[in-house]
């Protein structure tokens, strides 16, 4: 049956060994206040947050709205906050969470469209000027060494555009004009590996009080990134690059005047 196959695809356990309580943020649209609904769900040892949410949607409340797709942390669609922490729901096992009720909320620092679904367009708009290449070169691929000297692997970029970093960033919440960790990480990748794009243009773009200079090094973005994109290091690398260029310009100015 289709229903059984779908359950298999997402690894959902139907035989529950215990019940866990979920407290889920519900919101009809961005103009109204959110409220919390509680659901008790039968879960197994390998049940993920996404499994449980789908169970709730199927058997408890069909109006619960959420996004998901690949179910294996590749697409970045199911980002949300679980017990206050940004995660991808599809790979967050309930067994790894602390005992007690589980609080599920949408990502922060993005407009809530409905329940756990947020407006991701600001993030996508912020990423666009970075002209981030989607392919990168790397000496390693899934733990393997490069196959021939000077022949790095070509693989997809790390960032899966999930928005967890923006949600975790303490600054993105108070200033919507801040470029944010995702855009800065993308910008750094363009500078580090231009692939035809202009690094100077991208550096000029992030060289702003609302660009890389707004980062306060809280490193939360890197902590929550499910994909190893390390936005914090990218922001710092951009600052290093800009500082070097600024000091270089000053040094050249000094030399010319002499």
């Amino acid at each position, binding site marked *: 049956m289709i229903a059984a196959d779908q359950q298999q695809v997402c690894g959902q356990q139907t035989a529950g060994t215990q019940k866990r309580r979920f407290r889920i943020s519900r919101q009809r649209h961005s103009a109204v206040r959110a409220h919390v609904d509680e659901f008790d769900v039968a879960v197994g040892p390998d049940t993920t947050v996404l499994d449980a949410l789908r169970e709730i949607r199927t058997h408890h409340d069909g109006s619960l709205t959420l996004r998901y797709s690949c179910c294996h942390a590749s697409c970045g669609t199911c980002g949300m906050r679980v017990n206050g922490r940004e995660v991808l729901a599809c790979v967050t096992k309930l067994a790894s969470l602390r005992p007690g009720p589980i609080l599920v909320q949408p990502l922060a*620092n993005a407009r809530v469209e409905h329940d756990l679904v947020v407006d991701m367009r600001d993030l996508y708009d912020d990423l666009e000027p970075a002209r981030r290449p989607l392919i990168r070169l790397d000496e390693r691929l899934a733990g393997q060494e490069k196959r021939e000297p000077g022949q790095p692997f070509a693989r997809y970029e790390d960032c899966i555009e999930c928005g967890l970093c923006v949600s975790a960033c303490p*600054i993105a919440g108070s200033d919507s*004009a801040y470029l944010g960790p995702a855009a800065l990480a993308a910008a750094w990748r363009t500078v580090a590996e231009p692939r035809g794009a202009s690094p100077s243009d991208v550096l000029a773009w992030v060289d702003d009080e609302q660009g890389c200079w707004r980062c306060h*090094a*809280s*490193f939360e973005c890197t902590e929550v990134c499910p994909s190893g994109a390390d936005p914090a290091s990218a922001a710092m*690398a951009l600052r290093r690059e800009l500082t070097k260029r600024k000091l270089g310009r000053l040094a050249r100015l000094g030399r010319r005047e002499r």
Partner: protein
Amino acid sequence: MSAPTATGRPAGSPLRGAAGWANVKGRHLGSVAFFTNRVTGLLLIAYLYLHLGVLYMLTEGAGSWASVLHLFKNHYFLALESLLILFILVHGLNGIRIALVGTGVGVRHQKAWFTAAMSVSAVLYLVVVLAMFGVI
């Protein structure tokens, strides 16, 4: 609406989520460092103006200053002043970490540096307190 910013979006309304930066619950060492530096910085600014205000008493002559000193020699006051030294140590030593990390130097070790900065602060604070209370 203000002119487009680097993102092309106008800035959000001021103070939207103003206290968002203060959320350290469940966060990691980097966030604790950021929060600590901001709080100590703001407290030190408050102290700066308090200090400048108190120093005005010097212009009122020896008598006024003597009464100020009398207040300062109180043990409870000394304890509060020692907190000031702690804030300076924490802000300063973490500040070195931020100066380096924020310019892309040693980013990989940022957590270790924070731990080191706080440990050194604690030790130096102990030394200062002992000196303040005449033990050493």
